[in-house]
């Protein structure tokens, strides 16, 4: 929901400050880069995000979530659907789950 509504405050609160995000294009993103992107009103966000095949593994105060993410968005006037796989890692700090890293890689793209 937060990615659909470009809710930068959600990510500001729920990612550790030294969070890292590995992207499909082979670059790493920092938390500040992600927040800047979310707050950029000139960039249009996805119109639909669907998570499937989600698995959750706990290792005491660490959790790893894997899933397939399907996203619909508008690009250059066209509707584009992308599918990617994602691995998110969390730690429980002061009773609160914070994401410490995320990595995504593209599975397919359907124009």
């Amino acid at each position, binding site marked *: 929901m937060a990615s659909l509504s470009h809710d930068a405050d959600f990510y500001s609160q729920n990612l550790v400050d030294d969070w890292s995000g590995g992207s499909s*294009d082979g670059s790493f993103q920092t938390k500040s880069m992600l927040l800047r992107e979310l707050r950029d009103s000139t960039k249009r966000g996805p119109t639909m995000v669907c998570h499937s095949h989600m698995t959750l593994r706990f*290792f005491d105060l660490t959790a790893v979530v894997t899933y397939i993410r399907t996203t619909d968005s508008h690009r250059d006037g066209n509707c584009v659907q992308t599918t990617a796989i*994602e691995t998110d890692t969390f730690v429980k700090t002061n009773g609160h789950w914070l994401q410490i890293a995320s990595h995504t890689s593209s599975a397919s793209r359907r124009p």
Partner: protein
Amino acid sequence: MKTLTRFQWSSTAALIAVLAIATMAWRHAPAEEDRAAILQWERDAAAAKHAGDVAFFEKNLMDDWTGGLSSGAFETKQSLIASLRHADAIEKDSVSSVAVRVYGDAAIATYSRSYEVVVDGGLLPNESITTESFVRWDGRWIQVAAHSSIVKPTP
């Protein structure tokens, strides 16, 4: 109650400051050791991969380990070990920009990798980035997940 002299106050304040700094240093030391342990893990994994030593991965990956591939598929520990037994020849494999962050009993390692795969007798250059997740389990670091994506060439 006895009143402390200015000298005694100064000495007490200095002692508290020294204890605070020592405590901070003591707390900081394990994180440095953990970072070193993860870096050693990465060196051992690279050597094991090069030598085809699947026993290293059997021992140092969690049984429910997941690997996110740049092709957009997930692999399991079993499929990784099977692929290592029949891996394509990799030439000029090098890792750079290694960064390790420790969060108590969890750690994240990120790095870039350049390598050349032998395809049809020729060398195919590749660059990728990887995020690896570790947990401290029974006193040692075990990898629970890894995920890579290919660096797309700039147009």
